């Protein structure tokens, strides 16, 4: 925009963008590490993806440049269109993965009655291997197998 000219303003804007995207990425990572419920994990993934997308848009930013859409006979610089196209693709990919994840969660909830992924992992580890299951269970503090 035309109001953005000084270097300090640009720097501030840059830090805002970077801090925003890094914050979203970190928040998403935290959700993935701390939460165990499948829906929360999927939400965390979505946050993480938003952070990545914000970063990509920030990469294409140019001071004093317009949106990459030609209106009439316009001269002057435009911001980088490529990252914008990339994030459009990335957003659609994210939606597809999220939808499939929700569908899987519906099936898991119907079949297993829980959406705690750590618990499901424990059940998965115990499916066929009575021998190894006993080895791994004590460290997680559980003794009974559901």
């Amino acid at each position, binding site marked *: 925009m035309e109001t953005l000219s000084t270097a300090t303003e640009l720097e501030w804007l840059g830090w805002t963008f970077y801090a925003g995207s890094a914050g979203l990425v970190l928040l998403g990572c935290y959700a993935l590490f701390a939460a165990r419920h*499948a829906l929360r994990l999927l939400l965390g993934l979505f946050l993480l993806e938003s952070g990545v997308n914000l970063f990509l848009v920030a990469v294409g930013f140019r001071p004093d440049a317009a949106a990459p859409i030609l209106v009439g006979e316009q001269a002057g610089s435009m911001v980088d269109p490529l990252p914008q196209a*990339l994030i459009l693709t990335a957003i659609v990919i994210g939606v597809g993965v999220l939808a499939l994840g929700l569908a*899987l969660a519906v099936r898991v909830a119907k*079949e297993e009655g829980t959406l705690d*992924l750590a618990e499901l*992992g424990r059940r998965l580890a115990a499916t*066929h291997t009575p021998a190894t299951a006993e080895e791994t269970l004590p460290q997680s503090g559980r003794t009974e197998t559901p």
Partner: protein
Amino acid sequence: MNASVLMIALPLLAAFLLPLTGPLARWVGPFAAALNIALGISLWQTVAQEGPSVVVMGGFAAPLGIVFRVDTLAVLFATALAALVLILWPRTSADPRRESALLLILLAAGCGLAFSGDLFNLFVFYELIAVASYGLVAASRERLAAAAGLRYLVLSALGSAFALLGIGLVYALAGTLNLADLSRHADALNSPLGLAAFALMLLGFGVKAELFPVNAWVAEVYSTATARTTALLAGGVSKLALLIVLHLVLLVYAQPAALSLLLTLGLLSIVSGQFAGYRAADLPRMLAYSSIAQLGMIAAAFSVSGEAGVLAGLALALHHLIVKPALFLVGDGWPKCVDSLAGLGRAEPWRAALFVLLALSLLGIPPLPGFWAKLLLLKALLGMGEPAWNLAAAVVLLGTAIEGAYLLRVLQTLFRGTTNAKPATFGGALPAGVLGVALLLVMLAATPVGGALQRAAQQAADVPAYVADTLGGSPQ
């Protein structure tokens, strides 16, 4: 050369139109896969005569548009994947139409991964394979298959987000996404930030390639998905993910730090995979862990810059592509627990004999192809002449010893005692037999196969030719 595009477009077209084909739906998929094999063979001949070439999408030349690089390596992988998909086409399924569509999409995306010369395009095809495989994994009627699929999806999506972040960093630093163009601007990526981008991409693409920190999904998915899906993921998809890593290492990240990182992850995969395989008590899990270790070896081979490493990795990859699916198929239907396999060697001699053949080749017993692949790997690792790579050779030998211990344990169990259980139905007899015969053929035709691999490795490792082909040799 445009056949390379058709190898992607036609399976996608078939997948989109599949809901409308009515009673023909059963035949569309295998037909498209067979067509892809035919296209691949014709491409192979063209490449053999005219050398590698470049296909430009939409007529927009690189680096603005997306390009396909058609060389021996790419054609080899695309054709091998098509053949694997055809061999492993499911006979029965919960929902044949949807499963066929997913398999066709996997086929198209795999060809795209083999040919594409654009970083983001590779990411899109990688995601396409990932989404198709989530559906295929969950299509199993096994209990907990959906749970395994969900955990797999979460981990894989985390990896993909990291990979996308890495790609964004690459674009921020170098201003381009075309691999050949990035190769020209490789200096811009020779910084901590560039290396971080590589590490992020390695984490992302390493999920499918079963690399060390992000392979927690492997055992649980492979032990719940159907045998054919497992065979396809372990045999085909993982190699294609490593192919991306190979392109990155050869063209863009030839810097020592990146190579050491890849080597470290590969070695950690070998060690963790072999030890976990040694501890595993059931057969699918044991095979899954062994698969992690084998892919670690391929990654270690790719970390050797230059032709020798590519050749070794290629030989290992193709060997694993034949052997591991066959092993999963042979083991399907047998009791899962290793201890209950006792006596099956007498009850089902042919099946057990096939298992022995495959296991020995996996281990690398001399006349079998697996031996030559491992020999090439050791030669390549020692050829670097640096301490880290010498250590890697020792780790590979150690891994082989552990692998020998657990595979021989299975073989011993097979031929010990007798069982009064009825022989289980061998559903995968035909595909497993075909793969076994292919292994024997490779053993008999070792010289021509070796020559072809040599040519593929030579073309792939010739970076200046790649750059000149793609960018038209134009000066900067």
